[in-house]
Each structure stands twice: as C-alpha cells, then as structure tokens.
C-alpha cells in the first residue's frame, strides 16, 4: 500500500525533524522538553506567530514557576 508507506515515511520524517529541532533547542538552551516542543511546532504549523508564541510561553513558564 503505497499511500500507507508514504504516510509512514512522512511520520518518520516529521519525527526526525522534531528530534533534530529538540536537539537544536537543547543546544540553544531553550529549556524545552520534547512534548512542549511538539506542541509548539504544531501550533506554528497552524499559523501561530512564532515570536508571539515564544512570548506567551515565557510568560506561562514564569507564571507556572511562580
């Protein structure tokens, strides 16, 4: 089933992309875990402005920590 295989590949590629992005975020010391990052990526892919998201997240983080 080629379409299934393609989906699988896509999923794998997405997985790989997330892995890499997670590593980059670690290198840049972003204090993001994999789940958070995945959520953020989904949101950005849904058209959320990355800068706005970052701001919101910083605030959330700050508030959560409080």
């Amino acid at each position: 089933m080629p379409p299934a295989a393609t989906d699988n590949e896509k999923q794998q590629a997405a997985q790989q992309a997330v892995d890499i992005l997670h590593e980059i975020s670690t290198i840049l010391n972003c204090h993001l875990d994999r789940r958070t990052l995945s959520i953020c990526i989904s949101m950005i892919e849904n058209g959320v402005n990355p800068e706005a998201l970052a701001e919101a997240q910083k605030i959330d983080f700050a508030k959560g920590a409080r």
Partner: protein
Amino acid sequence: MAYAAHLGALTEELVEAVASVSPQSNSKRFDVLKESTLRKIRHHSFLRTNQFQVTNELDGLEERFRVLNRDGLADALRERLDALAQLPNNFTPDILHFILKLSDQPVQNSKLRDLELLKTPDEDLESPLKWADIAKEDGWDQDRGLWENVDFADDSSDGEYVDIDTKSDASVESQDTSLSSVEARHRRLPTDYLTLTHDRAGFKTVEETQSWRHQSSPKSATGEPQKITITELQAVREVLFMLRGLDSTLFNKKQAVLSPKYQLNHTSWEGYRSLLESFGEAGRQLYLLRSFAKQLQNIPLMQVFQHAVETRLLLFDTFLSNLEAQFVDIKQDVAVSLVKVLNEIKPHLQPLSSFSGIIQGLNQAKYPHPFHYLELLFNATNIAHMEGDENTYKFLGTVFFECFRVYVRPIRLWMETGELLEGDKTFFISKSSTQARMSQVWKHQFKLRKTTNGTLHAPRFLHPATNKIFTTGKSIVVLKHMGRHVMTNGPAQTQEPPLEFDEAYACGEGALTTFSEIFNTAFGNWMQSKHHAASSTLRQALFESYGLWSVLNDLEHIYLMCNGAQSDTFASAIFSNFDLLNSRWHDRFTLTEVAREAYANVDTNRIAVSVSGEHCQSEVHEVRKTVRKGLPGVTLSYRLPWPIQIVLSDESLDHYQAIFTLLIQLRRACYMLQRHHLKIDGVAEMSYEQTRFYRLRSRLLWFCSSLQSYLTTLVIEPLTAELHGDLRQAEDIDDLAAVHSTYAKRMVDEACLGSKLDPIHQCMLDILDLTIRLEDARHAESERAQEMQEISRLSMSAASMTASPRRPGRYMQPSEEEDETFLAEQDRSVLLQDVDVDKTYAELLAEMGADFDRLVKFMCGGLRGVARASSNAAATKWDTLAEMLEVGIQEERQVFSGQPYV
C-alpha cells in the same frame, strides 16, 4: 471554528506542559493561563518570520560558539542544521525563529552533555567512567606518590590519566552524539580510540604484585634492616626488563648495578648476588649497544654499523619477548628459574658482548677514523674464529661484510670510473688540487692519503690491496685522458662477485681457513673483476696504439747503439769535427740533422740532439784530447708520446743517456786507435819505438774491444731480452714502469756507471784517454821525424841541386800511411803543443804502458773487490768483466815479463 478549537486544545496542552498546571488540579489558574496565552497568540504586533534573518542569526551563533572555543557545540549545531535542511518543511524557519527567541544565553549555558540526555532510553545513560572518578571512589586520588614511584607505568597509565582529565569534554563527546551525517565535519582524535576498562580486580592484582617495590626494609629483632624477599618470578621479570633496557627496581639503569635491598626467598645472598651479577654484566654490555644505537651518526659508514647494531638488538629483544611470553601467557607448565633463563640467553648474549667490546674499543680510541670499527670488527672476527666460537664468528663475519659493503662503495666508484666522491675524507685516495700535466697524471694527480704518523689512511686489513685499487682507478683516469674509456657495461650490469660472508665462508676450505684468508679471497676476487678490465685495456692501448714496442726499439737503436753502422755514422761525424778542431762542433741543428740522417729507420722527427752548456764552452782542442769533455755533453733526446712517458720515466731515460755516453766514449777510443792503418806486411824489422807503439796499441785495442763486447753481449743484450719478456708478462702500468726502470737501473749498474763504481768508471775513462794520448804521441813523433827528414833533404838538396823535387809537406814512413782527413796543416801546432816535449817518444810510450798496466790492474782489483763486497745483482757481471780483463794482465806477465818498458 475547527481552527479555534484545535488551537485551543493545543494551547491547553501547552499550558499544561509548561506551567505544570492541569484543569483538574487548579482549573481556575489553568483557565487564566490558557486565556492569557490565547490572547497573546492571537493579538500580537509581531511581523512574519524573515527566514534569511533566522539563517543569519544561527550562523552568527555558530560563529560565536567557535570564537569562544566551543567547537563541540558549534559542530553539533551545524550538524543539526544541515540535517534539518534535508527534511523539507515550510515552517522550519518559523520553528527555528521560535527556538531562537526562547534561547537562553546558549554560549554561556549550553552543555553538550544535555544532548546526551536526549538519547533514547535503550542507550547507556550512565556517565562515562573516568580515572578521576575511579580515583575519587577508591580514595587514591590524593595519593600522588603511588604514580610517581611505579616506574614501569611512567609512559602509559599516567599519560592516559592526564589526557583524559585535561581533554575538553566537548571534543570527546561530540563524536558520540554524531549522526550518520554524510558530511564528515568533525575530526577524529587519538582519544576517540581509547577503550576504558573497568577491570578493577585486575588492577588490584597488579597493585599487589608490584607492592614489593615500595616496601620498606623489615627490621630484625635487633633492629638491623633485613632484605626484602622477592619471588623468583619477580626476579626473572626484573632481569628481563633490565636486559631490554627498561627501568627495573633490582638494577640501576646505566650501570646495571644490583640493588642490595632485595633477595630471593629461597637462596643465599651470595648465590643470588653472583647469579644476578652475571645478568648485570650482560646488561652493562647491552646498555653500551643501546646507547650507541641512539647516537646520531652522519657518516654512512657509521650509519651502517649502527643499523647492524640496531637490527641485532631488535632480534635479541624479540627473543627476550618470546622468553617473557612463556611466563606471562602460560600455555604449558613452565619452571621459573633464573639459571634456566641465563642459560637460554647466553648463546644470544655471546655475539652481542663481542659487539659491545668493539664499541668500547671505538669509544676508547682518540679521534678514531670512521673505519676504525671495521678494523676492530675484523680483529674480533679473527679472534672468534681462532677461539673456535662458531656462533660469534659467523655473527661477526656477517656484520663485517655488511658494513664493508658500504666501505667498498667509493672503492667501486674509483675502480670503475676513476672518480672520487667530493669531500670524502674517509677514502684513502685523494686528488691533488692542481691539474697535473698529462704525463704526470699517473704519478702526481692522485695520492694515497696518509695519516700524520705516515700510515695509510685505510683499514689495516686493506693495506695489501690498496696499491691495486689505486692503480686501477688511475688506469681508468689515463684511459679517459686517452679518450679510450668506454663504459661498455654500466656499474649495474657489471658482474661482480658478491661480498657476502656466507658466500665467502662457503668458498673457504672448511673451518680451518682463517677469516683474513676468506676475506682476502673474497675481496681479491671482487677486485680482480674490476682491475683486470681496466689494466688490460690500458696495457693494450700502450702496446698497440702508442707503440711501446717500437718506442723501445727506437731507444735501443739510438741510445744503446744496437745498429753499429748507424751509430758509427753519427759518432764519426762528431769525431771528425773534433779532429778538424771545428769550434762549431756542438751546433745542435747540425748534430740533429746528422742524427736524423744516421738513424733513418726510427721516427726521426722525434730525435733532437743538443750539447749541454758547460761542454759547449770547452775549447775544441781540449775536447779533442779527452773523452771526458764534450762527449758527455752530447744529449740525445727522443720525444715520447705522453702515455709512454708514464712507463718510461725521465729517470730511466737519464740512465739510457749515461749508457749512450759511455758507448760513444768507447767508440771514440776505438776510432782513435783504428784510424791509423797498419802497413807492416813485408817490413823486415821495426824500430824499438815502433814495437812499443804497436804493443801498446794492440793492448788498448784489446781493452776497448773487451769492454765493448762486455757491454753489448753481457749487459745490454741479455737485459734487453729479459726486459721484453718481463714487459709481456707485466699486468699493469706500474708493473711496466717498474720493469723498465729496473732494467735501466741494472744496465747502468752493470756498465759500472753507478755511483759506487765511480772510481772504476773514472779508471775506464783514463784508459780510453790513453788511446788519444798514444795517437797524439805517435803523431808528434811522425811530425818530428818528418821535420828531420825535411832538414836532411834540404841539406841534401843543397848539396845536389839536381835531385828531383818531392811532394812537400808530408813525411811517410814506409809502414805508415797518414789519414788524409787529418788536420789541416795550420792547426797541427795546436795539437802538438800539449805533447810533453821534454820526453822522448820511447819514454812517453813506456809511461803510457805503465799507466795502462796500473789502470787495468786497479780496475780488475776494484771490480773483484766490489763484486765480493756487494750484494748487488750486477756483482757477477763485474766479476766476469774483471776476469776478462785479468786475462790481459796474465798474458802480459807471461809474454813480456822480462821486458820492462823503460
């Protein structure tokens, strides 16, 4: 609407993940956070992401990492970015932008180790084991002494410890995190290959086994220090370490002196010490070899020796390793015994110890020549052979030939091409700085290098062969000058016997052949292959192209007067000039012309005649009166081609000239005696004076012909025949030259012209002078008689005017006829003025007879005496000459005993 719902769900998740607040635990707070977040996301004033700016920012970040020496991070980042670029996604720049916004001072705070933590759980998450950690755990991290004192670990564990401790973690671990990226951007370091083991038990064992080294000496009950006991295995290990030139506790490194602190647990101290000291002795010798092998050598000859030493040491080390392996990697039961080890090592040590003896000799020599070790090696090999130590003998012999092959290189170059290496001070042939004349090239262009004390600058064992080597090279040089040296076969193609010990040894007749003989044979064969071609070519060139035979033939004609008729033509021309009192007798052009006419069969263009200065200046009537003036000055020169001059030296040409002078003097005497023709047939009786005259004349003639026949048949002819034979057999140019100069020297000696026989030579010349005196006296007497006759004739004619006129000017005795070519009338007075006018003719004749007797006796006696006293080869010839002359004296006694001259 679906979008809003989806975003809402995501926001919830985000808040839950980030703020760790769930709707269940704190719904109010959760809602507040969610709302505020949603608001922030929806209502903002940010621009869209500029993907180029993002790329720039990331590049800038990477660069910053590198600038701040965080290459590991930079590499990791670059790797990820590159990998990400492979996965096409429209939102990648946005996501990266988001990450950049969230980054929190990555340059200062990021840690590569964090990446490690991201790995999947199945990977080993345990932090890498480090020596530092082990040290901390075991509590010896503070104990530096542990490391310092264990010598054997100097260059291994310590190094690792330091390496790992100081290496930047970043670079070590950057590899572990690497992805299978196509682009290999990171470097591999030696430390990447380290395998860290965790064999703690093994480590403990090592520590325990080595602990004896650091024990302090136990004290006896009385407080005296006692020796630390060690096991035989430990001793064996120490011994093997020491022999391999490594540090050991039992021996100090340099002198291999035994440490008195230790003792085997089951032997007496004396037994232990003597056993270990025999190892120590071997260690000292090996240390010499090892330190020699480490020295820097510039001279190839030394380098090859050093290489030989290194190779032998390596073999020995391999043997030691194998021996050690028996104890370390035990495959079968092994008895640990120092004595056994010693016995096993001994046969290998023996050759090496003779080696170290050589190096010791080399070190002791003051300013040794580079080849000095070859001499030592040669001697040591000889000694080993004489001692019957087959093993050492073969070992040293092989090394000797190995090293000698390098020494032979300049010899080969010299013998094959006649060239010397520029600036080579080790070779025993040197070139003079000035360019010699062609004919001098053989003698003076090259020299054997001598040391300050006069010995040849070559290994002693080569001395017998040096001349041959020298000659061969010179032959090549001369051939090159002749334009005849063709490298028919290049050095590579030349078949030369190999200089191998095994080959040479195989050629020897069993074990009894001495090494020097084996060497001489091998080297002789090697040399013969080079020597033969060069010398035979040169010899051939001299004989065939430069006509050595014809030159010798010419010399025999010119100087040795082998053709009497030709020599007579030349000599008579000179003599008649004397007798004519021609003051220009010495004109060299005339003389040369006469010589060229006389010696028509030789290459006349080469002949030139001259008269040396002092003889030119003598008055001609003086010259006429004696053979000592004028004639010795007549110098014949024969221009030789330059290659022939190598063989026929100037010195031997002088000898030829001396013989020529003697022969021409003899010829002059004969000439004086013979130009007066006898006419005594039918004369009934002669006057007393006439009898005297004829007797003396015949004796002088006998003397001259005896001398002549002695010189020609006993001296010149046999020697010349011998010369021809010897020249045919001579092998090289030096032989040819030697044969010829011996020939010339012998000829001069046998002709009594040597310096020792000078009185006899002078006596001989006195006798030859007598012939001139006799002729002059006779001539004076005939003049006087003629005058008397004239006076009586005039008185007669005064009495009788009718007498018929006679031919004027000449008086002829019936038995005598004057030579028409004799002097012109006007010069006779010059001749006669020297004749002693006070003495009568008879008196003069008597005096001359007495002189002759005295001189001949003196000559005989002298020759006999010299022949007896001398060991010269010519002595027998002198004896023969004396015998020939004594015959005359004896006859004289028998026949004329009753008739004194007076």
